[in-house]
């Protein structure tokens, strides 16, 4: 059998369990196809992902979303604890859609989307 296998420091690669490997060509690894950034200036943001299938995607949102102290990146789906703003995201064969529970006003929230080459169906 041919391939590449790299173990964590101090662990013999020949006998390492999968969890003790930093990489193995035997196992599929998630592959980031593209990273997309922008502002949520409309209640639904439509972003072409350029993949041939419905891709795995991770969407992060950073405020202000109405709370001045909230400057963290939050994984979507998420809701703000006090501001009552909810976000969800979904994908079809063409686009990623980021949906905000209420129409945004400036200054707008930021988004960062990781689109993977790995499919969901």
């Amino acid at each position, binding site marked *: 059998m041919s391939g590449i296998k*790299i173990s*964590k420091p101090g662990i013999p690669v020949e006998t390492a*369990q*999968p*969890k003790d*490997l*930093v*990489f*193995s060509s035997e*196992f*599929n*690894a*998630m592959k980031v196809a593209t990273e997309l950034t922008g502002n949520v200036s409309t209640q639904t943001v439509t972003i072409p992902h350029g993949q041939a299938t*419905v891709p*795995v*995607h*991770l*969407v992060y949102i950073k405020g202000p979303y109405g709370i001045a102290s909230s400057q963290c990146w939050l*994984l*979507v*789906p*998420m*809701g703000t604890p006090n501001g009552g703003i*909810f*976000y*969800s*995201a*979904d*994908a*079809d064969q063409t686009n990623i*859609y980021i*949906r905000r*529970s209420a129409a945004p006003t400036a200054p707008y929230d930021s988004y960062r989307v990781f689109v993977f080459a*790995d*499919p*969901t*169906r």
Partner: protein
Amino acid sequence: MALPLFQAGQTVFQATNPVLEGPFFNSEYPVLKTATQKAGVVTGTGGTETIPHKLGYTPQYLLMIERIPGGRMNLVNNDYDPGGTWVSKDTGDSLDATTYADTTNIYLQWSATSGTYHYYIYIYYDPVSLI
């Protein structure tokens, strides 16, 4: 920082000049290794789907599901707040879901308008916790 044992750059091999955001692989940083990837369905108005992972520890995983039958795929995060209400369902969606895992199974807890909803899960060899 010691040089990694192996590093691959985005366009050329740059193993002697490691920059964390530049290479697509660096052996100092483990990548998630897929143990299982598979499709499934839940049917009805709600419940808990139990997905055995057979790893013996709590793995990292990604779970995506339709929020309307035959619709788009969404990441399942924690939609269910401690107060007992679903928080992330959009207008027009007919399913809410949350997920959690232990050393034996991954659980998909869901509540929906009656229908069949497809999900897709990636389970990784990489643990959240070994206990």
